[in-house]
């Protein structure tokens, strides 16, 4: 199976090869000329410079072969290769690492989005239920005049909004974090391959642009190799469904007719308010505290026993916490790991790369 996210065919290799060849040839000519001038003028500085540059030129050519070979290798580098290095069985291991990383980000985006939807539904229901007032006439002359009691019995439910408002914010940040990683992956897989690596290779073959070329190669290789590898490593274990925290069933239950049947898209949602509360004094949806846990429930009709209930608030908070972990927390880990890889690779290529500012910016 080939990569869907990236294929080497996307590269205009003819241009890259010819540009590199021109760069290397012109550098070789320049080095030869300077070497000759050094000999003619008997200038040892020029002589030493030419001696230093010649091996660099040779290594630039070797780097080019390696990097271009590695790009092809990358598309064959499957997630299942990691199971050979570890004791872990990789599901969907036939995918290449780029597709696997992309699919993992998609899965987590769906998870975080589900958490957002559940949080929003709970918040909407809390706001709705907490605003219901009840009036009870205590007089036999109610149709003419009377005295009675009015109260807002479910106003306490508003504290659920206090609990979940922070989660709504956190899951939004988490969703943005995942989308940013997906964008970063896609852009480096496409733009990075098409621009940074070829440009780095060409610049690396030109003596005066070698430093810039080395930096570009290190950054490009870092985001193209280390970043997806980290995502694959996380994708093996950081999956909520593996640890009993799947939330797809929950959102299905909340929205399906067989469950609580909450239509989150209906702006005039009343949930049986009109008739049931008028005839029986009972709103269909309510929050119930049971055994120290708070559930969102729906009455299934008279005699109002055995309501259908969704997950408790503390369970919903667990989904929020995991959404934060799989997005914001791992985003930071990925940047730290990738930057560590880039710095080490940069040193190996002979460049000190100051990536801290870039990370601060991100």
């Amino acid at each position: 199976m080939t990569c869907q996210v990236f294929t080497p065919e996307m590269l205009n290799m003819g241009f890259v090869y010819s540009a590199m060849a021109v760069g290397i040839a012109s550098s070789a000519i320049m080095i030869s000329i300077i070497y000759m001038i050094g000999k003619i003028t008997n200038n040892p500085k020029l002589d030493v410079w030419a001696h230093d540059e010649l091996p660099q030129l040779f290594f630039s050519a070797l780097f080019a072969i390696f990097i271009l070979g590695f790009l092809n290798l990358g598309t064959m580098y499957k997630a299942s290769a990691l199971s050979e290095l570890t004791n872990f069985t990789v599901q969907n291991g036939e995918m290449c690492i780029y597709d696997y990383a992309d699919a993992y980000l998609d899965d987590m985006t769906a998870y975080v989005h589900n958490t957002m939807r559940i949080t929003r539904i709970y918040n909407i229901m809390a706001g709705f239920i907490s605003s219901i007032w009840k009036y009870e006439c205590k007089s036999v002359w109610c149709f003419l005049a009377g005295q009675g009691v009015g109260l807002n019995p479910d106003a306490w439910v508003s504290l659920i909004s206090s609990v979940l408002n922070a989660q709504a914010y956190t899951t939004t940040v988490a969703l943005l974090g995942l989308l940013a990683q997906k964008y970063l992956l896609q852009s480096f897989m496409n733009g990075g391959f098409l621009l940074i690596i070829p440009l780095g290779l060409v610049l690396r073959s030109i003596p005066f642009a070698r430093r810039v070329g080395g930096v570009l190669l290190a950054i490009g290789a870092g985001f193209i190799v280390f970043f997806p590898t980290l995502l694959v490593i996380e994708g093996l274990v950081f999956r909520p469904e593996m640890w009993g925290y799947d939330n797809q069933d929950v959102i299905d239950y909340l929205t399906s007719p067989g469950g609580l049947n909450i239509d989150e898209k209906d702006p005039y949602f009343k949930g049986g308010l009109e008739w049931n509360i008028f005839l029986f004094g009972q709103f269909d949806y309510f929050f119930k505290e049971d055994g120290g846990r708070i559930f969102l429930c729906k009455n299934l009709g008279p005699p109002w026993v055995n309501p259908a209930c969704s997950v408790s608030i503390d369970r919903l908070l667990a989904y929020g916490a995991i959404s934060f972990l799989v997005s914001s927390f791992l985003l930071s880990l990925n940047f730290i790991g990738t930057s560590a890889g880039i710095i080490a690779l940069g040193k190996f290529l002979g460049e000190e790369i100051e990536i801290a500012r870039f990370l601060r910016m991100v």
Partner: protein
Amino acid sequence: MKKLLFFLLLFALSFAAQPEGWEVSSILAMLIAALLISFVYAGGIAFESEGLKLAAKHEAYEWITTLLMFALFLFAVATIDQFSTGVASYWFPNENLNAIPAPKHINFAVNISERLLSEQATLLGQIATLSKDIVDESTKSFYCSAIYAGFSLNPCMGFGAFSRPLSMYAATVGASIATTNSQLFLLKITPTFVLLIVFPLGIFMRCFAISRGLGGFLLSLAFGLYFVYPLMIIFMYGVTTQYQTEQGLNPTINVDTSNIECKGTNIGGSASADPAYDAMDATKTMIDANYSGPVFLALIKSMFSEGISLLVLISLIGASSKAFGAEVYAFVLAQLEKIA
């Protein structure tokens, strides 16, 4: 000359990926790295190149360091259960770690997190009940109307003053539950994540110069997550439990507000009690209820403890990464505090 070494090491990557089992692949990667280093050194002798010899020597030191790390980690994994059982018997005399499966320190930390989660969920439920009892009365209004006119009274509206602090407490306990859940999730995945994936890959990557940065980071992460993070959670639990015992703090709210009742004004001529007296009595009951203590306890047991544990973990990753051969910017992880 380093570049030549780089290309030689590259071949090792492809060969070392073959065997099954992470210990075997790690050992094989190290053997291949050793072989390559000796080739480079031999090349240095043959070509009388000091650069090649120096590069080979440098890589030999790194190789020995990796070997030491490998041995140290395996030794630490093998002995952590004995160590944690001994420490727990001293720190928690009432706990029996013998009944907890290995790795004991992680499973004990999981156990602690589950206890905290149960406490905090119960506390949230209690706050909800308390809020329900109060709101029922604070929103109660008594009305009297004729055909054209009427009036409404809300004699216990003052109870509403308790609603805002209760909302704040609920938000705090909610955040504590979320924090404890993230802690629990991290602890649950740690044995699989570290022992089966992060550490083997870390050792493998650290063997080779091109991937030493990422390998070193993975090793420092493995070390921090597997040993330091769970032990810090256990330690902080011990500290906060001791504080709780010393201060006599109760993790639950011990007040019964179910009988609070706001009586109506005596409009209908019935003999209801004086509403002002009832309101004062109920207010006194609520003020006497110590609901800030359990919330404070939940706060220090989860967010404070988790914060300290994470800070230590981050500091350790930052400090140890150099030793493991990586240069990391752990401040990025610390920025998470702002988001959280």
